[in-house]
């Protein structure tokens, strides 16, 4: 067992974990952040994407022990304290950027990271930027539209979040 200290969605957790425990398993089974989903489990689909020190990673391909001393943000940590949706969440809602919703937490976390890297992406840059996230309902059109709306919303808000 290994001792780790990890900040998840603003709360610091101290836990003993087996070295082989994956970050996604830790988040779901130890911390209870079941908003982060396991999809393909082979680092293809991106459903498990979270922010690790502010940038998007696939939590099925990171060990929980590697998160020791780091900060993780899941889909559950995006909304404001009063429950108001993050602009990317709001845009996915407004543009109906989901059908079954399974890819959505990962899509949103990757989109948040993408818009930090590139606040004003072109459509091609959005598609390229999301190429590590698969949607099996073929809902990409509305996902791209949502990222465009979120980019506008964040620009208007001064990119504060």
């Amino acid at each position, binding site marked *: 067992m*290994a001792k780790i200290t990890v900040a998840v969605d603003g709360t610091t957790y101290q836990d003993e974990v*087996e*070295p*082989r*425990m*994956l970050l996604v*398993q830790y988040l779901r089974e130890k911390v209870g952040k079941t908003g982060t989903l396991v999809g393909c*489990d*082979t*680092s*293809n689909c*991106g459903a498990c*994407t979270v922010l*690790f020190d502010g*940038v*998007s*990673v*696939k939590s*099925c*391909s*990171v*060990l929980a*022990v*590697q998160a*020791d001393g780091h900060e993780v943000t899941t889909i559950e940590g995006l909304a404001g304290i009063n429950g108001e949706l993050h602009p990317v969440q709001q845009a996915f809602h407004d543009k109906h950027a989901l059908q079954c919703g399974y890819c959505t937490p990962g899509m949103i976390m*990757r989109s948040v*990271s*993408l818009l930090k*890297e590139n606040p004003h992406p072109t459509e091609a840059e959005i598609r*390229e*930027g999301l*190429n*590590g*996230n698969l949607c099996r309902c073929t809902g990409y059109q509305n996902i791209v539209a949502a990222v465009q709306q979120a980019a506008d919303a964040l620009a208007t808000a001064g990119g504060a979040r």
Partner: protein
Amino acid sequence: MIPASFDYTAPTTLADALAALAQGGDDAKILAGGQSLLPVLKLRMAAPGLLIDLGKIDELRGVRMEGDTIVVGAMTTHHDVIADPLVREHLSLLAKTTEQVADAQVRYRGTLGGALAHADPAGDLGAVAVALDAQMRIAGPNGSRSVPASQFFTDYFTTALAENEILTGIAFDSFAGWGAHYEKFHTVSQAWSTVAVAAAVLVAGGTVTAARVALTNMGPTPIRARGVEAALIDGPASDDAVRAAALAATQGTAPVDDATAPAAYRSHLAQVLTGRAVLAAAG
């Protein structure tokens, strides 16, 4: 899927990592960014008893100049390689190729050294190291040594690294001013290369004065296309001349026949993609 049990250590110095590796013997495995290794462990294709994580060793990260040489620390992530001003100025082939590795999430975790030590013949970065004659810097219990990229890759997933050695950095000459392009053919956007070609050229007054070309996934290791380079040099950077030179791309290759592509198709791709890569590099 969960890996088989292993012990884990995350040393903060290279010396401690080498000591852990010496102690762990052939049951120990180095963990760099984990973007290839962790899936391998989860699929139970490997089950090492000890993982030595290099993630806390600061001296292995970052890009620096040593005289005229650019040294990329083995643990520098793909994302940081792409963003690095020294890489962008001196090694645009490395920057452009790294941009095409996997996807953004993988590029935030995966490292140059990890990708090269993994030595997947379908991995993109080996071709860059071979094309640019990189020197692979290796540390072991008896000190350091340097191995040219052309001798580093020895077979499928096999390198010149001994069991008690760690790849610490990759040293490149400057290729400032060279045109560069990586032409990658893959069936889905984040998939491994079916075949890909790394090309860097110097063109003066419409004539190719220097050329470096290497192939991904045309054999068990990345292959330098010296026949193409020889055919290009002192010739015009024209469509016809480049496409004629590109026909030499299949020399010395040994492409596999697999579910993704028959060997003959890979050979065809090697020639077509070489033409495209060189023309794009010549700009």
